[in-house]
C-alpha cells in the first residue's frame, strides 16, 4: 500500500508536465560542470553552473539518464559521471605509492567504461563520434588551462556535455531520448510485480532513497535484503525476488519518494528523529499548506503560518479550502536503521479527516493569554517549553512522534507529555506556568476526558478541588506581591512544588502568612477584596488534600494560571 500510494503520486506528477519529475529511466542530478564542445569534438569551454556563495555553492539540476547503483566495482553512467570517469583524472594527493598505482589503473578502467557505454548504447551520429574523439583524446595540459579546472580536479564533481549553440545537455536531446526509450521498451518480463500486479522485469537492486535525516548521505533502502536471515527460501542470490517489484514500479516509488524528501520539497517535515513526507491522491491545497500547521512561523513573515491556520478554521466543517473532503491523504514517517530505512508510521486518511483532527488540536490549545503571546503555538514550541531548560536538545526522543500521532489520529496525548510538562513547571522556579504550558495541560486533559473539562478562561464553577487550590495559590501570591513589592523570592519560587504535590502540608502555613501580608496592605478596600476572594475560593472545598495525582496537579496548574491571568486583566464593570 505504501509503495502503491507512492507510485500513485509519481503517476500523478508524471501526468503533470509542469511538475518536473523525471520520466522512467531518468533522474534529476546536480551537474556543477558542463563541458561545451563544438561539432568537431574540440573543447570550447567548461561551464560552471553553480550558484550561491562560498561552500554553499551548488550546481544546477539536470535531467540525466538514471545512474547505476555502484558499490565497489567500476560501473559508468551514461553521458554523465564524475570527473574520474569522464576524464580519467582526479586528485591523488595524500595517497601512498601503492594506493596511487591502484587508483591510476582504476581510473583508466573507469574512463574506458564510460566511453564503452557511449559506444554501445548511443546510435551512431557525427556528434557521438565527436564526443568519443574528444574523450579519447583528452590531455590534462589542455584542461588545466580552463578556469574551472582547479575545482574539478579537487572535488571530483559530476560532469556532462553540451554542444555549442545548444541549450540542453547532449543527453537531454531528442535523439538520445528516443534511443533510450526504445531500449527500455524492449525489456523482457520475468515475474509478477507486487505493486502493480502486472508482469514486469523484476528489479534486483532498488534505487537508494536520499534525504532521510540521519541516514547515510549516499542514500539508504526501504526494500533491501542484505543478510541471509532476511531472505525467504534461500533467495539470497536474487535479492529482489524476495519481494518481486517490477522495474517500472521500483523506479516510480523511489523517484516519488526522493522528490518528496528532496531539500526544497514543501511536502516534508522533521518530526523528532522521523523524516515525514505527505501527499494527497489528487492535487490539493492541503498538501501544500500542511507544514504551516506545525512549523514554527518564519521570522521574515510571522503571519504566514497564522493565516493558514485561520484558513483551516474558516474553511467548512471538514475539508480544507476547496479541497474535496474525500481525497485520500497519506503520511509516511521514515527513520534510518543501519543501512536501511524503517517505516515509523504510516497514516492513510482523507483530507477532511486530517483537517478535522488538526482543527481539534488547535481548539484544544486555546487558552486565555497575554497579548504578546503568539496566537498559535507550533509543535516545536510546545515541546521545547516542556523540556529541561527549554532547550530543543532536551526534547525526549520519542515524544514528538507520539504527540504527532495523537494529533493526526485525534486520540489522547501520551501520558509522558503531562509528566514532562508538570516536571518542568516544578523545576522552573522563575516562570512556573507559562501560557504555552497551561495550553498544553489544558489540551492534554480535554483530550484525555474527550470533553471540555477545562475551559479557556477562569471557571469559578469548576468541580475539582485541585483547580481551586491552584486558584488560591495564585491569590496568595498576588497578596504577597502587593504587600512586599520587589521581593526576590515569592511563595511561587518557594512553595509551588509542595503546594501542588501535597497541599495539606503548605496551605495552612501560607494562609497564616497571608494574614501578615494583608495587614501590610495600605488600601483597606483591596484587603477586603482579597479576603472575599479567598472566602469564595475556599467555599469550593472542605479540606486540603494530602496528595494530588498527576491529573490533579495539572488542574492545579491550570487553576493557578487562570486565576493569575484573571487577576492581571482589568475588569470591565
Amino acid at each position, binding site marked *: *500500500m*505504501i*509503495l*502503491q500510494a507512492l507510485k500513485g503520486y509519481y503517476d500523478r506528477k508524471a501526468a503533470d508536465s509542469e511538475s518536473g519529475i523525471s520520466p522512467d529511466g531518468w533522474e534529476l542530478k546536480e551537474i556543477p560542470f558542463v563541458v561545451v564542445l563544438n561539432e568537431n569534438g574540440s573543447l570550447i569551454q567548461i561551464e560552471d553552473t553553480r550558484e550561491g556563495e562560498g561552500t554553499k555553492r551548488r550546481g544546477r539540476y539536470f535531467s540525466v539518464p538514471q545512474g547505476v547503483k555502484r558499490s565497489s566495482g567500476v560501473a559508468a553512467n551514461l553521458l554523465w559521471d564524475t570527473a574520474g570517469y569522464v576524464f580519467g583524472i582526479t586528485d591523488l594527493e595524500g595517497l601512498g605509492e601503492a594506493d596511487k598505482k591502484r587508483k591510476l589503473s582504476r581510473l583508466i578502467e573507469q574512463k574506458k567504461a564510460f566511453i564503452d557505454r557511449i559506444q554501445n548504447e548511443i546510435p551512431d551520429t557525427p556528434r557521438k563520434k565527436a564526443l568519443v574523439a574528444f574523450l579519447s583524446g583528452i590531455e590534462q595540459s589542455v584542461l588545466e588551462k580552463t578556469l574551472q579546472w582547479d575545482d574539478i580536479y579537487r572535488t571530483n564533481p559530476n560532469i556532462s556535455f553540451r554542444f555549442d549553440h545548444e541549450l540542453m545537455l547532449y543527453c537531454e536531446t531528442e535523439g538520445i531520448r528516443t534511443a533510450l526509450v526504445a531500449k527500455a521498451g524492449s525489456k523482457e518480463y520475468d515475474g*509478477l510485480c*507486487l*505493486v*502493480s*500486479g502486472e508482469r514486469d522485469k523484476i528489479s534486483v537492486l532498488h534505487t537508494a532513497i536520499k534525504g532521510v535525516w540521519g541516514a547515510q548521505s549516499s542514500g539508504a533502502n*526501504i*526494500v*533491501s*535484503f542484505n*543478510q*541471509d*536471515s*532476511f531472505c*525467504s*527460501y534461500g533467495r539470497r542470490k536474487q535479492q529482489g525476488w*524476495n*519481494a*518481486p*517489484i517490477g522495474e517500472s514500479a521500483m523506479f516510480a516509488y523511489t523517484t516519488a519518494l526522493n522528490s518528496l524528501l528532496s531539500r526544497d520539497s514543501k511536502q516534508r517535515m522533521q518530526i523528532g528523529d522521523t523524516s515525514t513526507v505527505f501527499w494527497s491522491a489528487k492535487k490539493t491545497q492541503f498538501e501544500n499548506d500542511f507544514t504551516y500547521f506545525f512549523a514554527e512561523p518564519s521570522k521574515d513573515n510571522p503571519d504566514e503560518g497564522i493565516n493558514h491556520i485561520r484558513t483551516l478554521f474558516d474553511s467548512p466543517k471538514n475539508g480544507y479550502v476547496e479541497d474535496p473532503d474525500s481525497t485520500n491523504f497519506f503520511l509516511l514517517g521514515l*527513520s534510518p*536503521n*543501519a543501512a*536501511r*530505512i*524503517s*517505516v*515509523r*508510521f*504510516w497514516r*492513510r486518511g482523507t483530507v477532511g479527516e486530517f483537517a478535522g483532527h488538526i482543527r481539534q488540536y488547535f481548539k484544544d490549545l486555546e487558552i486565555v493569554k497575554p497579548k504578546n503571546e503568539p496566537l498559535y503555538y507550533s509543535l516545536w514550541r510546545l515541546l521545547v517549553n516542556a523540556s529541561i531548560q527549554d532547550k530543543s536538545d532536551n526534547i525526549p526522543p520519542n515524544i514528538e*512522534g507520539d504527540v504527532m500521532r495523537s494529533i493526526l489520529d485525534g486520540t489522547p496525548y501520551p501520558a509522558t507529555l503531562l509528566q514532562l510538562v508538570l516536571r518542568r513547571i516544578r523545576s522552573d522556579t522563575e516562570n512556573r506556568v507559562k501560557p504555552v504550558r497551561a495550553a498544553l495541560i489544558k489540551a492534554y486533559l480535554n483530550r484525555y476526558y474527550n470533553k471540555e473539562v477545562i475551559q479557556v478562561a477562569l471557571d469559578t464553577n469548576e468541580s475539582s478541588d485541585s483547580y481551586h487550590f491552584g486558584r488560591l495559590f495564585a491569590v496568595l501570591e498576588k497578596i504577597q506581591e502587593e504587600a512586599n513589592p520587589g521581593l526576590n523570592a515569592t511563595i511561587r519560587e518557594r512553595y509551588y512544588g509542595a503546594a501542588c504535590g501535597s497541599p495539606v502540608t503548605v496551605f495552612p502555613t501560607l494562609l497564616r502568612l497571608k494574614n501578615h501580608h494583608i495587614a501590610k496592605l495600605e488600601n483597606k478596600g483591596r484587603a477586603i477584596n482579597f479576603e472575599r476572594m479567598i472566602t469564595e475560593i475556599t467555599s469550593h472545598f472542605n479540606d486540603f488534600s494530602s496528595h494530588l495525582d498527576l491529573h490533579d496537579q495539572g488542574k492545579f496548574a491550570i487553576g493557578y494560571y487562570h486565576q493569575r491571568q484573571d487577576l492581571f486583566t482589568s475588569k470591565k464593570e
Partner: protein
Amino acid sequence: MMQDWCLEVWGEYACYARPEMKVERVSYDVMTPSAARAIFDAILWKPAISWHITKIEVLNPIRWISIRRNEVGKIMGEPTQAQLEGKSGDSAGFFVEEHRQQRAGLFLRDVRYRIYGWFEFIPPEKRKPRLSQYDEFWADSEEQTNNTRSDESPAKYAAMFERRAKKGQCFHRPYLGCREFACNFTLVEGVHPIKEKINDDSDLGWMLYDMNYEDPSCPKPEFFRAYLENNTVNTDRRTLEVRS
C-alpha cells in the same frame, strides 16, 4: 463442498509482514489469507485436507503501533559433511548475543477478525508422495487389501475439526502473522452479521494470497487485489483473480 467454518480470532498485536518490508517490518492493514489458513491448520491439519479461506471480517478498527525490538541477524548453518559422517567439528550453531540487532516494526494493535474457511478433501492417490524412505506398514494383508483408509471421509475430518475448535484444542498455538503474537480463537456457530461500520471501505492494494508450494524447492508467492468492503475482505479463490 464442505461448509464454511467461522473462527473468531483476536490478540493484542499482529504483524502480517509485507514482503517488500519484511526486514524493517511493516504489516498489511488486515490479515492475509495465508495467515488465516495457518490458524485453521493449527487446529486441524492432515495430509488429507487443505484449507481454503473464503472471507475475512475485520471487527476492530485498524490501529498501528511502532516498536523497536531485538532480533537475530543470522540463520543456522548446516552441519558439515564431516559432522554428518559422525566426526566432531566446529559447532554449526552460533551465539545469539553476537548477532543481535535492533530492528523497527510497524505492527497492528488489538486486532479481532472473523475468518471463514472450508477444507478440501484430498483423496489418497492425489496426496503428495510421502517423504519416508520406508514402505507403508500394515498390520496384516487384510488391512492392506480391504480396509485401506476406508474410515477416511470428509465428514470424519469435519467432525474432528468442529470438536477440536469447540474445545480450543490446537496442534500448535495459532498466531497472528508472527509466532510471537499469539492468537486466541473460538468457533463461531450460526450467523453474526456485523451491525455497524467499523472500518472505511478501502482498496488495500495487491496482497499476498499464499505461497504456491507446487515446486517445494522454490515456492512462489501469489498475490490478489484486496478490497475492504463492509468490514470484509473477500478471499474466495473461486471468485477472485489470484496472480502468480
